[in-house]
């Protein structure tokens, strides 16, 4: 692929067909996890009247989903539960919107992409959410590169996941750097 560069409010990259297909698939998988979580929310009989959707009061059991939907307060479980019920629907909607934008602006067969500012921000969130899920599945806890392990099984699925995680990080870094450069107010 050609990594992201920015110019005059447009952020451009180019994807191989296999890369576009992979990225689209991974973002779609995160959307599925989020949708499953949304469906697990309690049914509120007043929701139709009030127009308010309420989230669950407890954190997701799947640790990857829990990382996408962390607690709101460190010490007060009641306060955290209350805030989760009130705010989790918004977080789910924001993440799903970002994922939908990426999927709709990334050609499945690859090729160039040109993003405006708002679309680029959606891409950041969507790609980062995939990274967060991977990090939990791969138990990434620090800056050490697990790929360097001499005993790494290069044919194993975990190795492939690590390579994909590293690629996602590179893509995210390139887009973030392009956006930061366009917004450098310290000159």
């Amino acid at each position, binding site marked *: 692929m050609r990594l992201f560069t920015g110019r005059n409010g447009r952020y451009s990259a180019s994807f191989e067909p296999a890369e576009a297909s992979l990225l689209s698939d991974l973002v779609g998988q995160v959307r599925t996890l989020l949708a499953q979580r949304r469906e697990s929310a309690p049914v509120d009989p007043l929701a139709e009247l009030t127009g308010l959707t309420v989230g669950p009061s407890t954190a997701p059991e799947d640790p990857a989903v829990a990382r*996408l*939907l*962390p*607690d*709101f*307060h*460190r010490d007060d479980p009641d306060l955290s539960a209350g*805030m989760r019920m*009130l*705010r989790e629907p*918004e*977080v789910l909607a*924001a*993440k799903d919107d970002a994922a939908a934008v990426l999927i709709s602006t990334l050609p499945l067969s690859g090729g160039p992409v040109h993003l405006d500012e708002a679309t680029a*921000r959606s891409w*950041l*969130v969507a790609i*980062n*959410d995939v*990274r*967060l899920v991977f*990090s939990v599945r791969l138990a*990434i*806890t*620090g*800056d050490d590169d697990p790929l360097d392990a001499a005993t790494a099984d290069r044919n194993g699925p975990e190795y492939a996941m690590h390579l994909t995680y590293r690629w996602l*990080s590179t893509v*995210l*870094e390139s887009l*973030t*750097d392009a*956006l*930061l450069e366009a*917004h*450098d*107010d*310290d000159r």
Partner: protein
Amino acid sequence: MTLPAAGGETDTRPASSGDSPWVVIVWNDPVNLMSYVTYVFQTLLGHPRSTAHKLMLDVHEKGRATVAGGARESMEIVVTQLHAAGLWATIAQDR
């Protein structure tokens, strides 16, 4: 308004917090890119680049940073937006 705090941590709380001051704390995690965290602090919280960068370094080096302060409702909105952006953040009562 940015005031230097006693511990050297960048204090981003407003000079007068009003009723029931609450703060938003961002916690370090091994996954989020430093550049991404800086960008979120700059765009979502409206901090100038230098403040955003300093806050990001505080999170990275000290494990946490207070990134906003104010009325509870406002801080709830901020922490929700930070969660949407993938950061690990919590709300707390100030003192």
